[in-house]
Protein backbone atom coordinates (compact mmCIF):
# COMPACT_ATOMS: atom_id res chain seq x y z
CA UNK A 1 0.00 0.00 0.00
CA UNK A 2 2.73 2.42 0.98
CA UNK A 3 4.60 1.74 -2.23
CA UNK A 4 1.42 2.34 -4.19
CA UNK A 5 0.87 5.63 -2.37
CA UNK A 6 4.42 6.69 -3.04
CA UNK A 7 3.99 5.91 -6.73
CA UNK A 8 0.79 7.87 -6.87
CA UNK A 9 2.33 10.91 -5.24
CA UNK A 10 5.32 10.61 -7.52
CA UNK A 11 3.00 10.83 -10.50
CA UNK A 12 1.06 13.67 -8.90
CA UNK A 13 4.00 15.92 -8.15
CA UNK A 14 6.48 14.93 -10.82
CA UNK A 15 9.13 15.90 -8.27
CA UNK A 16 12.54 14.36 -7.96
CA UNK A 17 14.06 13.52 -4.62
CA UNK A 18 15.98 16.76 -4.11
CA UNK A 19 12.94 18.75 -3.05
CA UNK A 20 10.02 16.42 -2.49
CA UNK A 21 7.40 16.65 0.21
CA UNK A 22 6.22 13.06 -0.29
CA UNK A 23 9.45 11.10 -0.15
CA UNK A 24 9.20 10.17 3.52
CA UNK A 25 12.77 11.32 4.20
CA UNK A 26 11.77 12.87 7.50
CA UNK A 27 9.68 11.42 10.33
CA UNK A 28 6.97 14.04 9.87
CA UNK A 29 6.75 13.38 6.15
CA UNK A 30 6.65 9.61 6.72
CA UNK A 31 3.82 9.99 9.23
CA UNK A 32 1.87 12.14 6.86
CA UNK A 33 2.34 9.69 4.02
CA UNK A 34 0.84 7.00 6.25
CA UNK A 35 -2.06 9.28 7.08
CA UNK A 36 -2.43 10.16 3.43
CA UNK A 37 -2.65 6.44 2.60
CA UNK A 38 -5.38 5.91 5.19
CA UNK A 39 -7.36 8.84 3.79
CA UNK A 40 -6.79 7.53 0.30
CA UNK A 41 -8.19 4.07 1.12
CA UNK A 42 -11.22 5.33 3.04
CA UNK A 43 -12.08 7.97 0.47
CA UNK A 44 -11.61 5.56 -2.43
CA UNK A 45 -14.00 3.04 -0.85
CA UNK A 46 -16.62 5.74 -0.26
CA UNK A 47 -16.17 7.06 -3.78
CA UNK A 48 -16.62 3.64 -5.31
CA UNK A 49 -19.79 3.00 -3.25
CA UNK A 50 -21.34 6.35 -4.22
CA UNK A 51 -20.42 5.90 -7.87
CA UNK A 52 -21.83 2.34 -7.84
CA UNK A 53 -25.11 3.52 -6.29
CA UNK A 54 -25.45 6.23 -8.92
CA UNK A 55 -24.71 3.82 -11.73
CA UNK A 56 -27.21 1.35 -10.30
CA UNK A 57 -29.87 4.07 -10.18
CA UNK A 58 -29.17 4.93 -13.80
CA UNK A 59 -29.19 1.32 -14.91
CA UNK A 60 -32.24 0.16 -12.94
CA UNK A 61 -35.47 0.09 -14.89
CA UNK A 62 -38.41 1.92 -13.46
CA UNK A 63 -40.52 -0.80 -11.82
CA UNK A 64 -43.88 -1.40 -13.38
CA UNK A 65 -45.32 -1.74 -9.90
CA UNK A 66 -44.52 1.84 -9.00
CA UNK A 67 -46.63 3.82 -11.44
CA UNK A 68 -49.25 6.40 -10.46
CA UNK A 69 -52.13 4.43 -11.95
CA UNK A 70 -51.62 1.65 -9.41
CA UNK A 71 -51.66 4.15 -6.54
CA UNK A 72 -48.57 2.45 -5.19
CA UNK A 73 -46.06 5.00 -6.37
CA UNK A 74 -45.30 6.16 -2.82
CA UNK A 75 -44.04 2.73 -1.95
CA UNK A 76 -40.33 2.31 -1.90
CA UNK A 77 -38.28 -0.75 -2.34
CA UNK A 78 -37.80 -2.74 0.82
CA UNK A 79 -34.03 -2.37 0.36
CA UNK A 80 -33.92 1.41 0.68
CA UNK A 81 -34.43 1.79 4.41
CA UNK A 82 -31.70 -0.69 5.56
CA UNK A 83 -29.41 0.65 2.83
CA UNK A 84 -29.80 4.20 4.18
CA UNK A 85 -29.09 3.06 7.72
CA UNK A 86 -26.02 1.18 6.57
CA UNK A 87 -24.83 4.16 4.55
CA UNK A 88 -25.16 6.57 7.48
CA UNK A 89 -23.37 4.15 9.77
CA UNK A 90 -20.58 3.75 7.22
CA UNK A 91 -20.12 7.52 6.93
CA UNK A 92 -20.03 7.84 10.70
CA UNK A 93 -17.51 5.04 11.05
CA UNK A 94 -15.35 6.42 8.25
CA UNK A 95 -15.25 9.91 9.75
CA UNK A 96 -14.40 8.57 13.19
CA UNK A 97 -11.64 6.42 11.73
CA UNK A 98 -10.14 9.39 9.87
CA UNK A 99 -10.34 11.60 12.96
CA UNK A 100 -8.58 8.97 15.07
CA UNK A 101 -5.92 8.45 12.42
CA UNK A 102 -5.15 12.16 12.15
CA UNK A 103 -5.14 12.54 15.94
CA UNK A 104 -2.53 9.82 16.34
CA UNK A 105 -0.43 11.19 13.47
CA UNK A 106 -0.46 14.59 15.12
CA UNK A 107 0.46 13.15 18.55
CA UNK A 108 3.20 11.04 17.04
CA UNK A 109 4.72 14.10 15.34
CA UNK A 110 4.53 16.09 18.57
CA UNK A 111 6.17 13.25 20.53
CA UNK A 112 9.08 13.04 18.11
CA UNK A 113 9.80 16.72 18.52
CA UNK A 114 9.50 16.79 22.30
CA UNK A 115 13.00 15.51 23.11
CA UNK A 116 15.43 17.25 20.76
CA UNK A 117 19.05 16.18 20.96
CA UNK A 118 20.31 18.99 18.76
CA UNK A 119 19.20 22.60 18.94
CA UNK A 120 19.89 25.12 16.25
CA UNK A 121 18.75 28.63 15.49
CA UNK A 122 17.90 29.69 11.97
CA UNK A 123 17.53 33.41 11.38
CA UNK A 124 16.07 34.51 8.06
CA UNK A 125 17.34 37.61 6.32
CA UNK A 126 16.63 39.14 2.94
CA UNK A 127 17.67 36.82 1.21
CA UNK A 128 19.75 34.25 3.05
CA UNK A 129 19.70 31.99 6.11
CA UNK A 130 21.85 32.47 9.16
CA UNK A 131 22.37 29.15 10.93
CA UNK A 132 23.72 28.69 14.45
CA UNK A 133 24.18 25.41 16.32
CA UNK A 134 23.53 26.00 20.00
CA UNK A 135 25.29 23.59 22.31
CA UNK A 136 25.16 23.83 26.10
CA UNK A 137 28.87 24.61 25.89
CA UNK A 138 28.77 28.00 24.17
CA UNK A 139 32.42 27.82 23.19
CA UNK A 140 31.40 25.06 20.78
CA UNK A 141 28.79 27.16 19.01
CA UNK A 142 29.05 26.95 15.25
CA UNK A 143 27.74 29.65 12.96
CA UNK A 144 27.30 29.08 9.27
CA UNK A 145 25.03 30.30 6.52
CA UNK A 146 22.67 28.83 3.93
CA UNK A 147 23.41 25.24 4.88
CA UNK A 148 22.25 22.82 7.54
CA UNK A 149 23.90 19.55 8.39
CA UNK A 150 21.86 17.05 10.38
CA UNK A 151 22.75 13.63 11.75
CA UNK A 152 20.32 10.98 10.57
CA UNK A 153 17.79 9.66 13.12
CA UNK A 154 18.48 12.35 15.71
CA UNK A 155 15.65 14.74 16.51
CA UNK A 156 16.60 18.36 16.07
CA UNK A 157 14.75 21.45 17.18
CA UNK A 158 15.10 24.56 15.06
CA UNK A 159 14.41 27.93 16.63
CA UNK A 160 13.27 30.32 13.93
CA UNK A 161 13.75 34.07 13.88
CA UNK A 162 13.67 36.82 11.30
CA UNK A 163 15.64 40.04 11.04
CA UNK A 164 13.47 41.88 8.58
CA UNK A 165 10.22 40.57 7.08
CA UNK A 166 8.17 37.38 7.39
CA UNK A 167 9.85 34.38 5.80
CA UNK A 168 8.91 30.72 5.89
CA UNK A 169 11.21 27.82 6.65
CA UNK A 170 10.51 24.86 4.44
CA UNK A 171 12.54 21.74 3.87
CA UNK A 172 9.90 19.71 2.01
CA UNK A 173 11.73 16.42 2.47
CA UNK A 174 11.88 16.74 6.24
CA UNK A 175 8.90 18.70 7.55
CA UNK A 176 6.13 21.14 6.84
CA UNK A 177 6.45 24.91 6.63
CA UNK A 178 6.94 27.22 9.58
CA UNK A 179 6.93 31.01 9.38
CA UNK A 180 9.77 33.15 10.68
CA UNK A 181 8.33 36.35 12.06
CA UNK A 182 10.34 39.45 13.02
CA UNK A 183 10.22 40.10 16.75
CA UNK A 184 8.97 36.60 17.50
CA UNK A 185 10.37 33.17 17.97
CA UNK A 186 8.86 30.12 16.35
CA UNK A 187 10.18 26.59 16.10
CA UNK A 188 10.21 23.53 13.92
CA UNK A 189 11.11 19.92 14.65
CA UNK A 190 13.17 17.87 12.24
CA UNK A 191 13.79 14.15 12.45
CA UNK A 192 15.55 12.99 9.29
CA UNK A 193 15.15 9.30 8.49
CA UNK A 194 17.26 8.95 5.35
CA UNK A 195 20.75 10.09 4.47
CA UNK A 196 20.73 12.45 1.54
CA UNK A 197 21.09 15.93 0.10
CA UNK A 198 17.95 18.01 0.25
CA UNK A 199 16.92 21.54 -0.52
CA UNK A 200 15.10 23.99 1.69
CA UNK A 201 13.38 27.06 0.34
CA UNK A 202 11.77 30.20 1.70
CA UNK A 203 8.04 29.64 1.30
CA UNK A 204 6.67 33.09 2.03
CA UNK A 205 7.18 35.89 -0.47
CA UNK A 206 9.77 38.12 1.15
CA UNK A 207 10.95 40.50 -1.55
CA UNK A 208 12.76 40.69 -4.86
CA UNK A 209 15.02 37.69 -4.39
CA UNK A 210 12.57 35.43 -2.56
CA UNK A 211 13.02 32.76 -5.24
CA UNK A 212 16.79 32.72 -4.67
CA UNK A 213 16.60 32.09 -0.95
CA UNK A 214 17.42 28.43 -0.62
CA UNK A 215 19.04 26.29 1.98
CA UNK A 216 21.32 23.29 1.38
CA UNK A 217 20.42 20.47 3.73
CA UNK A 218 22.79 17.56 4.25
CA UNK A 219 21.57 14.58 6.24
CA UNK A 220 24.53 12.36 7.07
CA UNK A 221 25.60 9.66 9.49
CA UNK A 222 26.42 10.73 13.00
CA UNK A 223 30.16 10.20 12.42
CA UNK A 224 30.12 12.36 9.30
CA UNK A 225 28.16 15.02 11.12
CA UNK A 226 30.62 15.11 14.00
CA UNK A 227 33.51 15.33 11.54
CA UNK A 228 31.80 18.23 9.78
CA UNK A 229 31.08 19.90 13.10
CA UNK A 230 34.69 19.60 14.24
CA UNK A 231 35.84 21.18 10.97
CA UNK A 232 33.36 24.04 11.42
CA UNK A 233 34.71 24.74 14.89
CA UNK A 234 38.13 25.56 13.53
CA UNK A 235 39.00 29.16 12.64
CA UNK A 236 39.62 30.00 9.01
CA UNK A 237 42.85 28.80 7.45
CA UNK A 238 45.61 31.37 7.11
CA UNK A 239 46.56 32.57 3.63
CA UNK A 240 49.44 30.50 2.24
CA UNK A 241 50.82 32.46 -0.69
CA UNK A 242 51.24 36.16 -1.60
CA UNK A 243 48.12 36.24 -3.78
CA UNK A 244 45.96 34.72 -1.07
CA UNK A 245 47.53 37.09 1.39
CA UNK A 246 46.60 40.07 -0.78
CA UNK A 247 43.04 38.77 -0.86
CA UNK A 248 43.07 38.33 2.90
CA UNK A 249 44.28 41.91 3.32
CA UNK A 250 41.63 43.29 1.02
CA UNK A 251 38.90 41.29 2.71
CA UNK A 252 39.83 42.25 6.24
CA UNK A 253 40.45 45.95 5.61
CA UNK A 254 37.92 46.94 2.99
CA UNK A 255 34.20 46.74 2.20
CA UNK A 256 33.88 42.95 2.73
CA UNK A 257 34.67 43.08 6.44
CA UNK A 258 32.02 45.73 7.11
CA UNK A 259 29.37 43.04 6.74
CA UNK A 260 31.02 39.58 6.68
CA UNK A 261 32.66 37.59 9.43
CA UNK A 262 35.58 35.20 9.05
CA UNK A 263 36.45 33.62 12.37
CA UNK A 264 40.10 33.94 13.28
CA UNK A 265 40.56 37.17 11.29
CA UNK A 266 39.75 40.82 12.02
CA UNK A 267 36.77 40.55 9.64
CA UNK A 268 33.88 40.52 12.07
CA UNK A 269 30.81 41.99 10.38
CA UNK A 270 27.64 40.40 11.67
CA UNK A 271 25.02 41.39 9.11
CA UNK A 272 25.97 39.14 6.19
CA UNK A 273 26.69 35.40 5.84
CA UNK A 274 29.55 34.04 7.90
CA UNK A 275 32.29 33.05 5.46
CA UNK A 276 34.64 31.15 7.77
CA UNK A 277 34.18 27.90 5.84
CA UNK A 278 32.73 29.43 2.69
CA UNK A 279 34.43 27.13 0.18
CA UNK A 280 33.18 23.97 1.91
CA UNK A 281 29.55 24.75 1.00
CA UNK A 282 27.61 23.32 -1.91
CA UNK A 283 26.34 26.62 -3.21
CA UNK A 284 26.77 30.34 -2.82
CA UNK A 285 24.41 33.31 -2.60
CA UNK A 286 21.79 31.24 -0.73
CA UNK A 287 21.53 28.45 -3.24
CA UNK A 288 21.48 30.80 -6.22
CA UNK A 289 24.65 29.37 -7.77
CA UNK A 290 26.56 26.11 -7.40
CA UNK A 291 29.94 26.51 -5.75
CA UNK A 292 32.69 26.67 -8.34
CA UNK A 293 35.45 29.05 -9.27
CA UNK A 294 33.57 30.71 -12.12
CA UNK A 295 30.56 31.46 -9.95
CA UNK A 296 32.70 32.80 -7.11
CA UNK A 297 34.38 35.14 -9.60
CA UNK A 298 31.05 36.24 -11.01
CA UNK A 299 29.47 36.72 -7.60
CA UNK A 300 32.34 38.71 -6.09
CA UNK A 301 32.79 40.82 -9.22
CA UNK A 302 29.17 41.77 -9.77
CA UNK A 303 26.54 40.29 -7.43
CA UNK A 304 23.93 42.75 -8.65
CA UNK A 305 23.80 41.19 -12.09
CA UNK A 306 23.47 37.64 -10.69
CA UNK A 307 21.01 38.42 -7.92
CA UNK A 308 19.67 41.93 -8.53
CA UNK A 309 18.52 43.69 -5.39
CA UNK A 310 20.59 41.47 -3.13
CA UNK A 311 22.19 43.19 -0.15
CA UNK A 312 25.66 42.44 -1.44
CA UNK A 313 26.78 45.55 -3.32
CA UNK A 314 28.79 45.63 -6.49
CA UNK A 315 32.06 46.97 -5.17
CA UNK A 316 33.79 47.63 -8.47
CA UNK A 317 36.92 45.61 -7.77
CA UNK A 318 39.98 46.02 -9.93
CA UNK A 319 41.22 42.88 -11.68
CA UNK A 320 44.11 42.12 -9.31
CA UNK A 321 41.88 42.68 -6.27
CA UNK A 322 39.30 40.29 -7.71
CA UNK A 323 41.88 37.58 -8.47
CA UNK A 324 43.41 37.75 -5.01
CA UNK A 325 40.03 37.87 -3.22
CA UNK A 326 38.79 34.77 -5.04
CA UNK A 327 42.11 33.01 -4.41
CA UNK A 328 41.69 33.71 -0.70
CA UNK A 329 38.00 32.78 -0.57
CA UNK A 330 38.71 29.45 -2.24
CA UNK A 331 41.02 28.46 0.60
CA UNK A 332 38.23 28.83 3.18
CA UNK A 333 37.36 25.14 3.30
Amino acid at each position, binding site marked *: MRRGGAWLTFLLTGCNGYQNAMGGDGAEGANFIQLFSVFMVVCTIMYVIVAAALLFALWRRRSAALVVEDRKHHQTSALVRPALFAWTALIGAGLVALTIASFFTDRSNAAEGSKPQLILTVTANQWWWDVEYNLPDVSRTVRTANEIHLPVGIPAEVTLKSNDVIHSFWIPNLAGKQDLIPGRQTDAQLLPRKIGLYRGQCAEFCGTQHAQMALDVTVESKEDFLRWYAAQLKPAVAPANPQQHAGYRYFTTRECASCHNISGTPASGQVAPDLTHFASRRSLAAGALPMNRGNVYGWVADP*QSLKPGSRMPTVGLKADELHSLVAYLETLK
Partner: protein
Amino acid sequence: MSLRFRNSLLALGLVAALTGCDREQRQTRGKPLAETVPASTSPDTVFPGNANVPPSDPRAAVYEGNATAISEGQRLYNWMNCSGCHFHGGGGMGVALIDDKWRYGGRIDQIAATIVEGRPNGMPSFRGRLTEQQVWQLAAYVRTLSGQARKDAVSARADEVSNTPPQTQTKREPLTPADSAEQ
Protein backbone atom coordinates in the same frame (compact mmCIF):
# COMPACT_ATOMS: atom_id res chain seq x y z
CA MET B 1 -21.41 67.91 -25.83
CA SER B 2 -23.40 64.87 -24.91
CA LEU B 3 -23.10 63.45 -21.43
CA ARG B 4 -21.87 60.17 -22.84
CA PHE B 5 -19.18 61.85 -24.90
CA ARG B 6 -18.08 63.86 -21.90
CA ASN B 7 -17.89 60.74 -19.71
CA SER B 8 -15.85 58.79 -22.21
CA LEU B 9 -13.57 61.79 -22.64
CA LEU B 10 -13.17 61.89 -18.87
CA ALA B 11 -12.36 58.15 -18.77
CA LEU B 12 -9.82 58.60 -21.55
CA GLY B 13 -8.27 61.46 -19.63
CA LEU B 14 -7.99 59.31 -16.51
CA VAL B 15 -6.30 56.53 -18.49
CA ALA B 16 -3.91 59.08 -19.97
CA ALA B 17 -3.17 60.37 -16.47
CA LEU B 18 -2.30 56.83 -15.35
CA THR B 19 0.60 56.73 -17.78
CA GLY B 20 2.10 59.44 -15.62
CA CYS B 21 2.24 56.95 -12.73
CA ASP B 22 5.70 55.66 -13.43
CA ARG B 23 7.54 53.84 -10.71
CA GLU B 24 10.92 55.31 -10.07
CA GLN B 25 13.79 53.33 -11.46
CA ARG B 26 15.48 51.06 -8.99
CA GLN B 27 19.22 51.08 -9.47
CA THR B 28 20.50 47.99 -7.74
CA ARG B 29 24.03 48.78 -8.75
CA GLY B 30 25.57 52.12 -9.56
CA LYS B 31 28.00 52.10 -12.41
CA PRO B 32 30.74 50.39 -10.43
CA LEU B 33 33.84 52.22 -11.53
CA ALA B 34 32.30 55.64 -11.96
CA GLU B 35 30.87 55.37 -8.47
CA THR B 36 34.28 54.91 -6.94
CA VAL B 37 35.81 58.28 -6.36
CA PRO B 38 39.60 57.97 -6.13
CA ALA B 39 40.84 59.37 -2.86
CA SER B 40 42.98 62.02 -4.52
CA THR B 41 40.11 63.73 -6.33
CA SER B 42 37.79 63.88 -3.33
CA PRO B 43 36.71 67.54 -3.13
CA ASP B 44 37.45 69.83 -0.25
CA THR B 45 34.29 69.91 1.78
CA VAL B 46 34.86 72.40 4.58
CA PHE B 47 33.97 76.00 3.80
CA PRO B 48 34.10 78.98 6.12
CA GLY B 49 30.72 80.68 6.31
CA ASN B 50 28.36 80.07 3.42
CA ALA B 51 30.61 81.48 0.76
CA ASN B 52 32.27 79.58 -2.05
CA VAL B 53 30.18 76.42 -1.75
CA PRO B 54 30.89 74.42 -4.90
CA PRO B 55 28.06 73.25 -7.18
CA SER B 56 26.29 70.10 -6.08
CA ASP B 57 27.54 66.70 -7.19
CA PRO B 58 25.45 65.38 -10.12
CA ARG B 59 24.78 62.19 -8.15
CA ALA B 60 22.79 64.22 -5.62
CA ALA B 61 19.81 64.25 -7.99
CA VAL B 62 19.94 60.45 -8.34
CA TYR B 63 19.87 59.66 -4.62
CA GLU B 64 18.09 62.61 -2.99
CA GLY B 65 14.47 61.69 -2.30
CA ASN B 66 14.80 58.30 -4.04
CA ALA B 67 12.69 55.74 -2.18
CA THR B 68 15.00 52.79 -2.85
CA ALA B 69 18.08 54.74 -1.81
CA ILE B 70 16.36 55.95 1.35
CA SER B 71 15.24 52.48 2.40
CA GLU B 72 18.65 50.98 1.68
CA GLY B 73 20.18 53.84 3.67
CA GLN B 74 17.81 53.14 6.53
CA ARG B 75 19.03 49.55 6.64
CA LEU B 76 22.69 50.60 6.43
CA TYR B 77 22.17 53.17 9.19
CA ASN B 78 21.63 50.29 11.61
CA TRP B 79 23.99 47.82 9.93
CA MET B 80 26.89 50.28 10.17
CA ASN B 81 25.90 51.21 13.71
CA CYS B 82 25.30 54.90 13.00
CA SER B 83 22.64 54.57 15.67
CA GLY B 84 25.40 53.67 18.14
CA CYS B 85 26.37 57.37 18.35
CA HIS B 86 23.70 59.40 16.57
CA PHE B 87 20.87 57.25 17.89
CA HIS B 88 17.87 57.37 15.62
CA GLY B 89 18.56 60.93 14.63
CA GLY B 90 18.18 62.60 18.00
CA GLY B 91 21.87 62.40 18.78
CA GLY B 92 23.70 61.12 21.81
CA MET B 93 27.42 60.63 21.75
CA GLY B 94 27.27 61.93 18.18
CA VAL B 95 25.43 65.01 17.01
CA ALA B 96 21.72 65.09 16.29
CA LEU B 97 20.76 64.56 12.67
CA ILE B 98 17.11 65.59 12.81
CA ASP B 99 17.75 69.31 13.34
CA ASP B 100 18.86 71.99 10.90
CA LYS B 101 22.36 72.43 12.29
CA TRP B 102 25.12 71.06 10.13
CA ARG B 103 28.76 71.67 11.03
CA TYR B 104 30.00 70.29 7.76
CA GLY B 105 27.09 71.09 5.48
CA GLY B 106 23.64 69.57 5.23
CA ARG B 107 23.49 69.00 1.49
CA ILE B 108 23.39 65.35 0.46
CA ASP B 109 26.82 65.54 -1.17
CA GLN B 110 28.26 67.22 1.91
CA ILE B 111 26.79 64.51 4.15
CA ALA B 112 28.23 61.87 1.81
CA ALA B 113 31.62 63.60 2.06
CA THR B 114 31.36 63.61 5.85
CA ILE B 115 30.70 59.86 5.86
CA VAL B 116 33.61 59.16 3.50
CA GLU B 117 36.11 61.54 5.15
CA GLY B 118 35.17 61.23 8.79
CA ARG B 119 35.14 64.32 11.02
CA PRO B 120 36.99 65.40 14.15
CA ASN B 121 35.79 64.34 17.57
CA GLY B 122 34.65 60.86 16.80
CA MET B 123 33.09 60.53 13.36
CA PRO B 124 35.08 57.71 11.70
CA SER B 125 35.90 57.62 8.03
CA PHE B 126 34.06 55.00 6.01
CA ARG B 127 36.35 55.37 3.02
CA GLY B 128 36.87 51.90 1.56
CA ARG B 129 34.52 50.37 4.16
CA LEU B 130 31.38 51.14 2.21
CA THR B 131 30.91 51.38 -1.51
CA GLU B 132 30.31 54.86 -2.86
CA GLN B 133 26.72 53.87 -3.64
CA GLN B 134 26.11 52.80 -0.05
CA VAL B 135 27.53 56.12 1.19
CA TRP B 136 25.09 58.02 -0.99
CA GLN B 137 22.21 55.81 0.14
CA LEU B 138 23.12 56.52 3.76
CA ALA B 139 23.30 60.24 3.04
CA ALA B 140 19.89 60.09 1.35
CA TYR B 141 18.46 58.49 4.48
CA VAL B 142 20.13 61.00 6.82
CA ARG B 143 18.52 63.77 4.77
CA THR B 144 15.08 62.33 5.58
CA LEU B 145 15.61 62.22 9.35
CA SER B 146 14.39 65.79 9.77
CA GLY B 147 10.94 64.69 8.59
CA GLN B 148 10.88 66.96 5.57
CA ALA B 149 11.17 64.34 2.84
CA ARG B 150 8.34 63.49 0.47
CA LYS B 151 5.82 61.12 2.00
CA ASP B 152 5.89 58.74 -0.96
CA ALA B 153 9.65 58.30 -0.64
CA VAL B 154 10.13 57.64 3.06
CA SER B 155 9.50 54.34 4.79
CA ALA B 156 6.15 53.91 6.49
CA ARG B 157 7.85 51.84 9.16
CA ALA B 158 10.68 52.82 11.41
CA ASP B 159 12.93 49.90 12.27
CA GLU B 160 13.49 51.11 15.80
CA VAL B 161 11.06 51.33 18.68
CA SER B 162 9.51 54.75 18.33
CA ASN B 163 6.85 56.77 20.08
CA THR B 164 6.26 59.14 17.19
CA PRO B 165 4.04 58.45 14.20
CA PRO B 166 5.82 57.33 11.02
CA GLN B 167 6.98 60.07 8.69
CA THR B 168 4.28 59.16 6.21
CA GLN B 169 1.74 60.48 8.71
CA THR B 170 3.41 63.62 10.00
CA LYS B 171 3.09 67.20 8.78
CA ARG B 172 5.81 68.84 6.78
CA GLU B 173 6.89 71.96 8.61
CA PRO B 174 8.64 74.65 6.59
CA LEU B 175 11.85 76.11 7.95
CA THR B 176 11.40 79.27 9.97
CA PRO B 177 13.87 82.18 9.74
CA ALA B 178 14.85 81.41 13.32
CA ASP B 179 16.01 77.92 12.29
CA SER B 180 18.19 79.34 9.54
CA ALA B 181 19.59 82.05 11.78
CA GLU B 182 20.91 79.45 14.14
CA GLN B 183 23.13 77.92 11.50
